[in-house]
């Protein structure tokens, strides 16, 4: 953090910072200061820049500045085919790329009218839930590290490493997966991958309890988070907050339950809610959600049927590689899909799934061409960050770090 001179800051940001604040301090110092936090700051989870107006150590106002990781993914989507865009969704929320893959292909399938085989849907559910576990593990680890508990980070990342190993078996990549395809998934889930998932789920609960014990009985951790950054339910809804942060405020809103997609209506799980709405509640929601996700994965493993993993729609779904090499018809379809795209009918759709940070949606407009006319990413981190100025007002400067950790923004997603 560095102290800024007024001429270093854009006048419009200064204006936003100096706007009247509703914070009053009993014994004000009459000595306000503007402090720059980020974009290169270890506790901002990427390249988030926050300008803070301080009186002593109390935050009077905060202005987040986004755009340091803006790569123009919406513009790029308008210039490439639906298939080509799958690897780019990995780079949105780079902590849970699998969930983004699922969200993208489901939006495209809705637009193009493709029915996905049931086995592929179960595999997608499995990877989306494992991605949620991986994302929450990083969130909790980094969050604990921000408030000073370093060991938890190592332990949660050890667990996440096992998930990355599962990705490795499933699709050959550990981090940027690009596993899903339009109409299904790239590879079938092999028995050894499923066995590894089963092993992971079986040992996960104990290991999570271990991590939890380190934090739940840690007095510093609890006292630094309790009653810090309270987000009342009506404010959260007004500011468009979704995901764990909204459920920590007592609103039972989960798209898996509200608008069931894939096969979630056949699965038994609870939507975790807490009522306190403070940073500690957001931590508890994430821990409990991981247990629920493990429960979902266990049911998915039981219920997963045998069968096809790709839809049989030759004009819209890429054929198998072996068939391309041996059969004329498949070769032609492959050529047409790769070069000209799948040409969904004219129309527009919005499809959202419950990502690990909240509602992850894609709004697609098709003009009947191979590439989308418009693609809008509704990213949860972007909308959740909007609550940051509300949350930090009136708190101490060291609480800002804890609050950013508790809403868990991923800047790749927020900046697109």
């Amino acid at each position, binding site marked *: 953090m560095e102290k800024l001179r007024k001429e270093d800051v*854009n006048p*419009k*940001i200064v204006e*936003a910072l100096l706007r009247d604040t509703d914070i009053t301090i009993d014994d004000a110092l009459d000595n306000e200061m503007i402090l720059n936090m980020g974009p290169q700051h270890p506790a901002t989870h990427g390249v988030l820049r926050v300008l803070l107006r301080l009186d002593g150590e109390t935050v009077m106002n905060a202005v987040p500045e*986004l*755009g340091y990781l*803006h790569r*123009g993914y*919406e*513009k*790029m989507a*308008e*210039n490439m085919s639906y298939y080509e865009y799958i690897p780019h969704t990995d780079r949105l929320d780079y902590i849970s790329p699998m969930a983004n893959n699922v969200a993208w292909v489901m939006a495209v399938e*809705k*637009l193009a009218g493709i029915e996905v085989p049931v086995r592929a849907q179960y595999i997608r559910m499995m990877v989306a839930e494992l991605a949620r576990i991986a994302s929450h593990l990083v969130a909790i680890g980094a969050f604990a590290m921000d408030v000073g508990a370093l060991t938890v980070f190592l332990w949660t990342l050890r667990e996440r490493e096992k998930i990355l190993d599962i990705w490795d078996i499933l699709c050959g990549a550990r981090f940027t997966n690009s596993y899903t395809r339009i109409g299904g998934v790239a590879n079938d889930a092999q028995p050894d991958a499923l066995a590894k998932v089963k092993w992971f789920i079986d040992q996960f609960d104990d290991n999570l309890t271990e991590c939890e014990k380190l934090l739940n009985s840690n007095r510093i951790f609890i006292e630094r988070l309790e009653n810090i950054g309270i987000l009342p339910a009506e*404010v959260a*809804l*007004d*500011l*468009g907050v*979704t995901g764990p942060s909204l459920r920590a405020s007592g*609103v039972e*809103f989960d798209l898996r339950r*509200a*608008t069931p997609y894939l096969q979630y209506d056949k699965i038994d799980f609870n939507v975790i809610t807490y009522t306190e709405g403070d940073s500690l509640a957001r931590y508890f929601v994430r821990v409990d959600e991981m247990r629920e996700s493990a429960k979902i994965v266990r049911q998915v493993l039981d219920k997963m049927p045998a069968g096809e993993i790709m839809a049989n729609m030759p004009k819209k779904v890429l054929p198998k590689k072996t068939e391309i090499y041996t059969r004329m018809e498949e070769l032609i379809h492959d050529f047409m899909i790769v070069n000209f795209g799948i040409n969904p009918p004219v*129309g*527009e*759709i*919005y499809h*959202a799934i419950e990502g690990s940070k909240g*509602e992850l*949606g894609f*709004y697609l*407009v098709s003009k009947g061409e191979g590439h989308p*006319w*418009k693609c*809008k990413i*509704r990213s949860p981190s*972007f*909308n959740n*960050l*909007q609550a940051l100025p509300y949350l930090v007002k009136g708190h101490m400067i060291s609480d800002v770090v804890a609050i950013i950790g508790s809403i868990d923004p991923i800047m790749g997603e927020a*900046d*697109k």
Partner: protein
Amino acid sequence: MNIKELIKNKLTNNFPNYQIEFSEYLDEFCIKVNKENILEICSFLKNDEDLKFILSEDITAVDWATRKNRFTVVYHIYSLKNNFRLKIKSDVDESDCSIDSVTSVWGAANWQERECYDMYGIIFNHHPDLRRMYMPEEFEYYPLRKDFPLMGIPGSLPLPKK
């Protein structure tokens, strides 16, 4: 009563003089309103006891490039009470590239409209803090317009001083 019919009835009864088009595509219900009425209709949809569209999910625009009304501003709002998502559209022409802001209805619209302004250059009237969201304040273009080239415009992004 079906929620779609409920919305239709409520809007036609409460705003008989307004031109509101209803459409549906792939089970997504959509209403199209004139941009002068957007604020009134949005606050009605949010505050009506039976509808309660309290969550503003997304605000964006579509650049049609060749149509008479060049832009369409698209709102996605959600009603937790009915578990229903509604799409609102409103046309904006390039000659009068502005529409009323709905920040007074949903606080979430603040950043969502800023992003839309940053990418398309649509002015949201009475917005409390209409700055660019991603691009630097000195940037002169609107990147998601169809006439902005994919490779960017060389020299348009100023490098930091020093």
